[in-house]
């Protein structure tokens, strides 16, 4: 995603959780999102067996 597309995502996702990103903070947030994107892709591109449980297990 380019910076403009990410900035649009940041605005929309922030609004959805009641968060206002100040104008002076937006570039930094977009840069941080850009830093996360390769990590997100690496994680999502990993083929995992469907029956693999999440690491944290809740004990009632």
């Amino acid at each position: 995603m380019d910076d403009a597309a990410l900035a649009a995502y940041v605005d929309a996702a922030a609004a959805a959780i009641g968060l206002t990103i100040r104008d002076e903070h937006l570039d930094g947030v977009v840069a941080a999102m850009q830093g996360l994107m390769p990590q997100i892709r690496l994680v999502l591109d990993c083929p995992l067996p469907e029956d693999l449980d999440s690491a944290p297990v809740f004990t009632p």
Partner: protein
Amino acid sequence: MNDLATMSAAKIAVGVRNGTFRAEAVLGAALAQIHALDGMLNCFTTVTVETAIADARRVDTAVQAGRDPGPLAGVPFAAKNMFDIAGIVTIAGSRIHRDHPPARRDATLVARLREAGGVLVGALNMDEYAYGFTTENAHDGATRNPHDPERSAGGSSGGSAAAVAAGMVPISLGSDTNGSIRVPAALCGVFGLKPTYGRLSRAGAVPFVGSLDHFGPFARSAADLALAYDALQGRDELDPVQANVPAAPASPGLDAPIDGLRVGVLAGWFRAGATDQALAALDAVATALGATGRVELPEAERARAAAFCITAAEGGALHLPDLRTRAGDFDPATRSRFLAGALLPAAPLIAAQRFRRWFRDEVRRLFARFDILLAPATPCPAPLIGQATMMLGGVEVPVRPNLGLYTQPLSFIGLPVVAVPIRRLGELPVGVQLIGPAWEEARLLRIAAFLERAGVVAAPVA
């Protein structure tokens, strides 16, 4: 420099217990050292003089009355300022937490060291909310490396590592979510222990990433590290994450032989980009331990990526209320990343947690073939304070995230790691990670003690 100020914790405890010197004298020496050096190094955010004097007098009174003052009798220690200390505000490196009321009681690990006779002398500087590897804190200033004050102490437990390296205290407490004990231990040339995830209580310490947070000690010798670690162990009902495993004291077997050890040196991800100095330190440890060969940790890069996602999402979500109302009060070094993390979609977080189980199982298989694995702690020695980028493997990369290249994949699955320090003449210190299977901290400390006796690793006062 007063000898009492730079004496090992073990020797202090013996001397105080047998009446050779008083805890109050040891404290006086520590406070003098802090007074002399902290203006330059900026390790402490609070020095707790009054409670320290009370602690020391309590120890001296116990000795005089013939009572057992504990295994850490009169040993000065300090804690990263995310640990609750009764009566002072737990700032966690932030401006925002300065508005919180003072802690009503000590964090469990602080209390354990005091109950063992330790004398708490203060709270130590850190990256805001532990989200960083350099301890360049916008509110409290940068902690400077005692080996070269122009350079970073590492982080986020930079104050904890630097205070020990400078001889202000023999023992300190820090936290490690992605490398925050091992990175500063390496850059400041001291020993650091990141125990197994769930081994030590986290109660009373400000969280950062619940899925990955660990707490542990720093020291200038393996024996002192073991002494502190043993005092910190034990079940704590206040921590729901703590594992139900029995305490496994490390000190009693510290000098036992390590014959027959199967040692693997991590290759691939854990060598790529490492400087010659980091690899030379690794080779020195590998040779001393008779390492049999290199081994790949599969998907280490993806493990680091998953740790990144979990860190961003959990950290961002934790601080969302403050991000909504007072984002401007965050340190600029953390604000953007917390905001971005709060906006991370759920799918990568959940995938990261599923991958975590897969990766853990893969590494467990590796430990059927090896008793210990080795890797550099950082790719390079301490960067300059304020340095934005560095060259790794011929590529210019940002300093801050890349100091944790080799630590993040390991804390991701909660393995115990001891960072051991190596400093060659004329060089800055670097560290090597001794990595064990879960719950084998005592084994790692025994190996660290062997390396120290062999003269391969050492942490003299800077």
